């Protein structure tokens, strides 16, 4: 779990690598350098090059064309819709994630392992299948289709369906980040707050939330990145009506199919920027946590 504090072995390994000792168990230089070269070459060809290419292609016709393709009404609508969907899905998943992590980390109840498994379900289901499930539930031929139509509500091929699909796909992120942090923190600080006269809400706000702050932020960042970047599930439920139910990823595909390469890459570059931002925050948070943990360890000794 990336958000969890590093284990003792991690720290020992880190210290060992700093020491640069030539141990008996270390591989000969030839193997070491071959492996390093392969890993580096892979990263450059499959990760770095495409990323650079996105920006190169996006800017291939100049800054003006870049700005124009982003402000073009249909692309602009896609950008706004993406932000709207994320703005609804992420807070809802934060609420759910905190509630789920809290109940799993702090309470004992029957079906706890079932809940833990269920939270992970979206990770193991193909997003396209997830989208189809919603079509089968809320589509015209679906279980609730007749009822929805009778009440003049549109879920599939409309924004509500896209929000639902996005929530489903990004369901695990916040909870998965919070559970280990909350489990590690334990119950005692909260019980201490109660004995000091704090109400449940005061305890949550002043004690629980600050202690899981970094895990929560990390979960939100990941959840947001996925919410904005989701393609498969949203593709199935959106019906891709241009200018109405197109999110950024769908818009990229559409522009590309219409041979508007530069415009497609311009929209794609926004998603790439989001990815870089997410990575930056993630690295920063991990560094912060490792530091706090190491500090606590040193003082604890």
């Amino acid at each position, binding site marked *: 779990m990336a958000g969890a504090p590093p284990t003792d072995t991690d720290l020992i390994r880190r210290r060992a690598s700093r020491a640069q000792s030539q141990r008996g168990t270390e591989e000969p230089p030839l193997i070491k350098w071959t492996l390093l070269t392969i890993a580096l070459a892979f990263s450059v060809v499959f990760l770095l090059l495409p990323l650079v290419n996105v920006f190169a292609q996006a800017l291939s016709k100049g800054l003006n064309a870049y700005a124009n393709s982003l402000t073009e009404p249909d692309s602009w609508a896609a950008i706004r819709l993406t932000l709207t969907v994320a703005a609804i899905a992420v807070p809802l998943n934060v609420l759910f994630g905190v509630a789920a992590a809290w109940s799993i980390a702090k309470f004992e109840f029957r079906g706890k392992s079932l809940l833990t498994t269920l939270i992970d379900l979206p990770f193991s289901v193909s997003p396209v299948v997830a989208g189809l499930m919603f079509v089968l539930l809320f589509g015209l031929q679906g279980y609730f289709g007749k009822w929805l139509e009778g009440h003049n509500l549109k879920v599939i091929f409309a924004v509500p369906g896209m929000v639902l699909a996005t929530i489903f796909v990004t369901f695990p992120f916040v909870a998965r980040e919070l559970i280990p942090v909350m489990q590690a923190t334990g119950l*005692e600080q909260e019980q201490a707050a*109660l004995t000091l006269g704090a*109400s449940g809400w005061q305890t949550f706000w002043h004690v629980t939330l600050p202690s899981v702050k970094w895990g929560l932020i990390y979960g939100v960042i990941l959840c947001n990145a996925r919410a904005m970047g989701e393609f498969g599930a949203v593709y199935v439920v959106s019906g891709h009506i241009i200018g109405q139910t197109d999110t950024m990823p769908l818009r990229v595909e559409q522009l590309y199919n219409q041979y508007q390469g530069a415009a497609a890459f311009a929209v794609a570059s926004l998603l790439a920027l989001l990815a870089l931002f997410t990575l930056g925050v993630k690295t920063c948070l991990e560094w912060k946590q490792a530091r706090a943990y190491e500090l606590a360890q040193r003082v604890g000794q």
Partner: protein
Amino acid sequence: MSIELKNVSKRFGNVAAVSNVSFSVNEGELLALLGPSGGGKTTVLRMIAGLELPSEGDIFVRGRRVNDLSVQQRNIGFVFQNYALFKTMNVFKNIAFGLKVKKWKRADIQARVSELLELFGLEELEKRYPHQLSGGQRQRVAIARALAPKPGVLLLDEPFGAVDAKIRQELREWLVTLHHELNVTTIFVTHDQEEAMEVSNRIVIFSRGNLEQIGTPREVYEQPSNEFVARFIGVMNVLELDVCKGVACLNELEFPSHGLPDGQRLRIGFRPYAVQISSDLKAYRYRAILRHTYFLGVMLRVELELPSGLLIRARMTKEEYAFQALADGKEVSFQIRQYRVLAREGEKLPPEVAVTHDVPVALGEGI
């Protein structure tokens, strides 16, 4: 009377953690709950705090039944074993927390926290975070935090468990001094009998969820109510004797039968200091080989092996040891001056039997 427990039991599922426990704590008392781990003492403490609810029985604080009061309403200070300091708050904010949630005025909070920081010698550390403090400092912060809202009772769960042996002694003395100064009713849990003896006014001894004895350190040491207490508090030689021909004996050792008929068994115990040793083989009745000497500082503990192989622990000053010219492997004579008839756990003995007895001259003197 500050706190009273009446027939309190606690079950977790099918496991009885505390069975039918009753005792009371006096105002301003420093009381220890002592017992091996799993004895139920921490559960009792948590029930007084309201962190656990009793399955049966009532708990009274200053005459008021508190069973239905929430943790927040009970006005107790609780210090957790690992202190449970708020790791995202500095020392000042940790201590101020209980006042802040009770909506004290800012100036009053400032004054109260400053007062506590001074009392606990933490003035320099108010800006530090818990991970920047030593174990002893953390404990002081935890106690200051618990005392800040002026609780009626202070409860401490294994207060010296998380610090190393060197500063443990210091902290014990500090807790006694603090209790003298504040005079707040204090209950602490410990598994260390020495700690309980040294720090507390009275000790409540638990074993497997049962209250075995309550009394002053001296009472539980000199008049243990049963075998468990006798073994748990200090060192005790415990022997199981067979009664035959009007005397109770084990191998070569003989004791009065205390009116038990032949064929019955009698359990007795004696402290190592009740064993008198002489290098003069004619001085006392029994013979033994001095097998091993343990150096404990001013006192020495020696292990005696009787001809039958029975081992007995004795204790003497090092002057006495030198005067008698004792050494490992040497043959000595000894006698047992005093012993106690012990009840097995749960067993009741007549009060005139379950006391300390001096060994009759006829049995103790040399031949």
